[in-house]
């Protein structure tokens, strides 16, 4: 239990994620991708004619996995606090509605962009790159470089950010 309460060492965490990627492939040639689970869930809610696909259940499982972790480690204390995000110049001191609006906007960029690109950090970044798919490598290089640039620019730009 004490082990679970601390951040999993990276040299354990990396191979564990690899185990999930390889395990899904071995199970039924399934591709681990969080964005795909959002797409499947959105499609299913828009047209709930058929039984939900395995990807919808993967989405449900991801949410449940978070709950299981919080229960197992005894850390389930629902909160809207979001670390240094709450101190970003754009939203600092403006209350929950401002923070919610920024997260909604950023989320919309994530959803629109990642669906355009056909995947996100898990589907392209880990699964696709491990399969040496050129499209995934290009997508990963792009979103990693852009995210690093934006993360560095945020405190400099008027958006502000925790020092």
């Amino acid at each position: 239990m004490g082990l679970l309460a601390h951040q999993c060492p990276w040299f354990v965490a990396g191979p564990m994620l690899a185990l999930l990627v390889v395990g899904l492939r071995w199970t039924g040639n399934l591709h681990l991708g969080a964005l795909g689970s959002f797409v499947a869930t959105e499609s299913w809610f828009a047209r709930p004619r058929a039984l939900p696909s395995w990807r919808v259940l993967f989405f449900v499982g991801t949410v449940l996995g978070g709950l299981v972790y919080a229960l197992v480690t005894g850390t389930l204390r629902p909160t809207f606090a979001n670390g240094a995000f709450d101190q970003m110049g754009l939203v600092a001191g403006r209350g929950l509605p401002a923070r919610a609006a920024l997260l909604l906007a950023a989320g919309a960029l994530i959803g629109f962009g990642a669906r355009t690109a056909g995947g996100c950090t898990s589907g392209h970044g880990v699964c696709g790159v491990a399969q040496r798919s050129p499209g995934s490598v290009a997508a990963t290089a792009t979103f990693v470089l852009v995210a690093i640039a934006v993360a560095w620019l945020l405190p400099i730009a008027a958006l502000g950010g925790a020092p």
Partner: protein
Amino acid sequence: MSALSRSASVASTGAGRGSNAVKTRLAGLLFGVGFGFWLCWTRFTSYDVILGGLRFQQLYLWLMFGSAVVTAAIGLQVLRSLGARTWLDGVSVDWSTTSIRRAHLVGSAMFGVGWAVAGTCPGPAAAQIGQGHMAGLFTAAGIFAGVALQGWVSRRRVTAPVVSPGACAQA
């Protein structure tokens, strides 16, 4: 999407696909739980951990990513080289790759901006909700909206050339 993957599994499985379809969903659920648990244990559901990684204040994100990709690449390669078959339907373990398209770059640039601003990507946003990290509700709602909007826009684009043949130039 669900209809698409369903028909794909019909094509690949043949006899006994009914129970396999249930098992595939069960596998999706179980691997999802593992993924969500893993995302919390690694602290990737934390804004500060993601931003600390992107700003190179902590190397955890990159060391994890590197070790995950290398381990997964080796594991997948070994499975395929040995001619392993899937547990559920006994087909050869295999995957397809994609060549680089403009959409990979344009979409990923947008995604990269959103990732750095929200400090979370789709997997962590989902896990946050279960973990009690309620900011994930807004991020996940935004992701669903973006996903739906992209679907709507691309469906319109598919039909656009019929209305205005000039738009065909791209194809």
